[in-house]
């Protein structure tokens, strides 16, 4: 990590604390907090309550941590001009409109232009490039627009149901399927929107991206394969969840099944998906390194 940019030729300004220039940073952080703490509160008391949005707070924490780590390394450069002011005003307009009309897409999405322009005006565009990844990463915190969700959830639900049915049938269970309703013995289970895997795909993609950012793999193919693997891994995790739920209900009854469903099922499968992703990266790494060794050996 680069050393913090302290000017060694003159005594540090009295407002420097912990390597940070609070005279510069203070007003900016205050403004951002006034705008977005209420936003995070609103998210926390509504959207983030549902288990499908676990990535929300995680993405926020990751971004905030990365930004915090980099703050001491920011060097004030040529201050940004009109473009930054325009971006700030646009971001603020989106925020005002989004928050007052309860359109989360705009309210939460406004973080990106506001943070970009806020830092640009305080430290200059050149310095903002160091914060580009964590700021743009916030995009994963923005809830998907309803239109996208509606369009993708139904086909995903059907896919998950089809796969679950086929596997249970192959295993010899008395299973039948009607659309997204699975009948097993005397039980009937609806594959709900939460089981479509849409949010798991989004969450896993966000975390996969962060992981790759940390690993800094140079091999483009490796990164691409890993990111594309997110979709089948998330769908697999949801298929496992549906099958587990059906089997538990079949052997232990409805109450046991519902208890499993609303218990740790979502979180456990998500972690399993994450581990699978990391495992895949390990395997890919093995092949990539072998290629490198071979090339050196020639």
């Amino acid at each position: 990590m680069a050393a913090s940019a302290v000017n060694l030729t003159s005594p540090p300004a009295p407002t420097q604390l912990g390597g940070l220039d609070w005279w510069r940073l203070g007003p900016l952080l205050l403004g951002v907090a006034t705008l977005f703490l209420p936003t995070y509160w609103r998210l926390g008391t509504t959207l983030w309550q549902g288990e499908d949005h676990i990535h929300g707070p995680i993405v926020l924490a990751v971004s905030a941590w990365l930004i915090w780590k980099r703050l001491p390394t920011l060097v004030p450069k040529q201050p940004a001009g009109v473009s930054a002011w325009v971006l700030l005003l646009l971001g603020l307009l989106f925020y005002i409109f989004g928050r007052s009309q309860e359109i989360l897409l705009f309210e939460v999405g406004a973080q990106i232009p506001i943070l970009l322009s806020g830092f640009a005006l305080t430290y200059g565009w050149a310095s903002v490039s160091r914060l580009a990844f964590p700021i743009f990463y916030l995009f994963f915190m923005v809830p998907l627009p309803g239109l996208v969700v509606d369009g993708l959830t139904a086909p995903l639900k059907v896919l998950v149901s089809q796969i679950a049915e086929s596997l249970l049938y192959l295993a010899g269970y008395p299973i039948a399927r009607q659309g997204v309703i699975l009948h097993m013995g005397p039980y009937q289970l609806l594959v709900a929107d939460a089981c479509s895997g849409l949010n798991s795909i989004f969450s896993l993609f966000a975390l996969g991206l962060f992981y790759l950012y940390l690993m800094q793999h140079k091999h483009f193919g490796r990164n691409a394969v890993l990111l594309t693997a997110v979709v089948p891994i998330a769908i697999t995790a949801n298929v496992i969840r549906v099958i587990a739920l059906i089997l538990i209900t079949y052997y232990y009854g409805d109450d046991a099944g519902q208890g499993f469903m609303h218990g740790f099922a979502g979180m456990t499968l998500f972690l399993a998906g994450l581990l699978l992703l990391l495992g895949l990266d390990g395997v890919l790494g093995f092949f990539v390194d072998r290629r490198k060794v071979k090339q050196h050996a020639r």
Partner: protein
Amino acid sequence: MRDKSVSRRGFLVSGLMVGAAGTTYLVTPRASAAVSAPNLELIIPKSFSGWVSVESQAPVLPDPNLQRTVNQIYDETLARTYVEPRTGRAVMLVIAYGAKQTDSLQAHQPEVCYGAQGFVVERSGDAAISGAFGTLPAKLVYAFQGARTEPIVYWLAVGERITNFGLRQKFRQLQDGIRGKIPEGFLVRASLIGPDEPESYSVLEEFLSGLVSSLPPSSRRRIAGV
């Protein structure tokens, strides 16, 4: 870089942000205080034009889990089954009311509500409900799940006007929001178990027409916009 210009800039940026937060608070629409809950159980007649309400077949209602992530709790729901003794036909009626119509009523939109319950929603089209009050632009939907084949006719009335769902409704919602209003909304839905044939939809349209005609003028305006 001089300290003065840094601080001026910094405080201006910060000031704009805090100003935006304040502006947001001022322009956020609040629900009209004058609106009172309609008490659907009392307003909607238990018998009209040959139809009588009975306690039997359960109409399809949204899954409580769907409500979990929705900000506002739904204000009032009426679910009744009516029977026409003369023909033996049965129609299921659901009326959902939201004081702040926003997105909580979305959960009752038949295409969404039935789909989420595992029904296959096959068709979606336009319907018209005519009577002495004029003609109401409604929607029709056909949904089925196994043996349960269900033709549906419904409308969404917001701020005493039928808007139905779609881009036009969203646009109107935004317009109202900008003016600081959050009007109330009613979703009225009639369905029966039967085939996907014109006759089924005529029965539903006739039923709804009878219902609207039997409402007192003020309720009729709120619920059907006429």
